[in-house]
């Protein structure tokens, strides 16, 4: 075995070898980029689905779409958004930057990492294969039409004939295996691969938050996998888990789904917090305020979020102590979340703020996430929820978190880390256009969406009668979509244009402090020439200011 001979890479001229290189790679950076590109493609697809739905809802009694197609669109929009946009996007950034920030060569299990990505990718393709099976493509083939939480007994063979629901189950099962692999990898990487000197207390918050996310994936995605196995049993083997005719209880599905579904929200928002916690300090020119409190709050959110799931179920008739328990636990989540908001504000306070595009998205995140959180507290109050459950108020609330929070944080991450990943800056001018048009579009769509909810418009209806007073609000929401779509087009154009023509970034364009900026842009395969040794939470500050290093104070 000539293991000591070094293979000298030949210059690659054939495009085939480049493709093979990406298909077979186990490098965390390439896998990270594949996750991100994959998620971007699905972001555009789910956006198109949203556009179709908003065209349908813009006017009362519209006939643009039929009920069946509408059901398919909102099911695919929701499922795609959670599993094939938000999760892969956040895993992608985590994959790329966790090893770099902790001074590691790669993730703990590079091959498991590649396996996880391809399972997730296969899941998404499987979900969309449903469009091309059976029926006509015009009406959505046999795409699932059961909603993203697929309540029983609607998923029973009698009510969901055909294979749409089966595609949905299998896609999520496959993607779930990929997610669990990613969770294992994040936990093992953060716990075992840190460079010398980087104790847990000196780790960037980004690594901390991905550690908590990884741990949550392990305990939250698994229940979904279990529930999907039961549903497959019900649909194919004739078991009776969710079959009322044989004594099974559909409410069990609700519990099993939401014990996954609610922690899932935090699996998405905690990595978004991670972006904000890295970007805000750099553009405020201050160290993060209250590092230990941030770590404790993250762990607290992760823990508490496992015990709040039935606040999605206040209307199914739980006993009063059940309702009370879930009202209280849900409100308790607001405490560590509030700590985070105050810490971010305190980081801004007295800072020398630079309003570059990443910072703009962070600041919008703070406002929008706060409002989304507050409507969440409103909905956590059981009597209020009885009134507004499954109304457009709920739709507006969770889009405030997912678009106004998570997506804005993702945009911030793109503008901040694109230079590291490609070696070129994204255009600031286009970035500001993207930001302001997105802000306008977001607020037009989702601020005004609260109102028809308060007026009693249920979610998931494919049309509504004129004269209910909902028409104007829906029209405004739909107009907002034009702005959002324009903003996304500018963003995609910016990505492509800057990749080829953007200004060269250099190693450290933002004068930042974490280890990823210590290597070249893009980093070499091996990440660091020499294994870094750190003594504080801001290793690059120590190098740049040897006369006044951080480790003297920490």
């Amino acid at each position: 075995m000539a293991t000591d001979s070094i293979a000298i890479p030949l210059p690659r001229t054939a495009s085939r070898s480049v493709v093979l290189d990406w298909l077979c790679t186990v490098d965390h950076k390439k896998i990270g980029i594949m996750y991100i590109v994959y998620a971007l493609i699905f972001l555009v697809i789910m956006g198109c689905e949203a556009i179709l739905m908003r065209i349908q809802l813009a006017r009362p009694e519209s006939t643009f779409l039929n009920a069946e197609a509408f059901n398919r669109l909102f099911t695919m929009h929701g499922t795609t958004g959670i599993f094939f946009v938000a999760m892969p996007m956040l895993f992608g950034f985590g994959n790329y930057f966790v090893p770099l920030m902790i001074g590691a060569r790669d993730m703990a299990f590079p091959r498991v990492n590649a396996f996880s990505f391809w399972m997730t990718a296969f899941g998404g393709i499987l979900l969309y294969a449903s469009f091309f099976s059976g029926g006509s493509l015009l009406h959505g083939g046999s795409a699932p039409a059961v909603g993203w939480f697929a309540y029983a007994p609607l998923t029973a063979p009698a009510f969901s004939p055909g294979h749409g629901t089966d595609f949905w189950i299998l896609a999520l099962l496959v993607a779930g295996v990929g997610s669990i692999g990613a969770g294992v990898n994040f936990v093992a990487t953060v716990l075992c691969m840190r460079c010398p000197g980087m104790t847990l207390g000196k780790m960037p918050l980004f690594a901390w938050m991905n550690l908590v996310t990884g741990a949550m994936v392990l305990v939250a995605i698994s229940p979904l996998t279990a529930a999907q196995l039961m549903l497959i049993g019900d649909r194919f083997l004739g078991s009776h888990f969710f079959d009322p005719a044989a004594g099974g209880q559909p409410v069990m599905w609700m519990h099993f789904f939401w014990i996954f579904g609610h922690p899932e929200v935090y699996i998405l928002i905690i990595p978004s917090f991670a972006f904000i916690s890295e970007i805000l300090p750099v553009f405020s020119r201050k160290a993060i305020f209250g590092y230990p409190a941030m770590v404790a709050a993250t762990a607290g959110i992760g823990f508490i979020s496992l015990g709040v799931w039935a606040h999605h179920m206040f209307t199914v008739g739980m006993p009063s102590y059940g309702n009370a328990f879930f009202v209280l636990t849900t409100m308790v989540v607001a405490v560590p979340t509030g700590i985070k908001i105050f810490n971010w504000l305190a980081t801004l306070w007295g800072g020398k703020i630079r309003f570059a595009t990443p910072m703009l998205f962070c600041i919008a995140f703070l406002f929008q996430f706060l409002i989304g959180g507050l409507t969440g507290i409103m909905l956590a109050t059981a009597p209020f929820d009885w009134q507004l459950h499954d109304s457009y108020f709920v739709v507006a609330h969770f889009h405030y978190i997912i678009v106004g929070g998570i997506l804005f944080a993702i945009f911030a991450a793109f503008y901040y880390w694109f230079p590291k990943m490609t070696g070129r800056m994204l255009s600031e001018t286009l970035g500001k256009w993207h930001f302001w048009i997105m802000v306008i579009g977001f607020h037009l769509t989702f601020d005004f969406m609260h109102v028809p909810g308060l007026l009693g418009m249920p979610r998931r209806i494919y049309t509504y009668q004129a004269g209910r007073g909902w028409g104007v609000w829906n029209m405004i929401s739909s107009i907002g979509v034009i702005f959002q779509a324009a903003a996304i087009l500018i963003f995609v154009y910016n990505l492509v244009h800057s990749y080829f023509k953007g200004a060269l970034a250099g190693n450290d364009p933002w004068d930042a402090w974490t280890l990823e900026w210590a290597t070249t842009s893009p980093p070499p395969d091996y990440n660091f020439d020499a294994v870094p040794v750190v003594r504080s939470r801001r290793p690059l500050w120590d190098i740049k200011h040897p006369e006044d290093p951080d480790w003297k104070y920490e």
Partner: protein
Amino acid sequence: MSATPVSVAAEAAEAQPLSRGRVGMWCLIVAESAIFLIFIVAYLFYMGKSLDGPTPREILTVPVITTICLLSSSATMHWATAALRQGKQTAFRLFWFVTFALGAIFLIGTGREWHHFIYQENFTIHTNLFGSTYYSLVGLHATHVAVGLIALGTVLLLALLGKVKQEHSERCEILAMYWHFVDAIWVVVFTVVYGLGR
């Protein structure tokens, strides 16, 4: 390819406190436990809620022998990995084989139980809620035993070919962690299905 200089690791050989293999296996065990937890909750929740028979009391017999086999395989597995760590090849191969054999006996036992239910008792996953929860929970566990046996069999084959050396003891111990988990979860499944459920 010049990176901003970061002070070179003088003490680069600093030992990693945690083995990533062990941490990874612990993570997998946590995830698997969550899957089992959902199936166990379903079993407990649907206990006694079947609309027709048969009931657990009517047909379940406690699998004493196979349970003893599976639980003792944890001990033999422990002895096997301990032997490998000390470089005692013969003892390692012997105990590893015994572990494999005990696991196989357990799986055969489950197979015979199912065969009896399906062909003699006409009791399937479709019969009632008890059937749905029983076959899924016991089947989930049996699947884990089967996966474990495939892994154990692979190592056994490599060991017989003389490819498993002392330096592989860490990897074998990580596989052993999975096997101990499969045994431990059987204690829970056994208690639920053959104890509380009956």
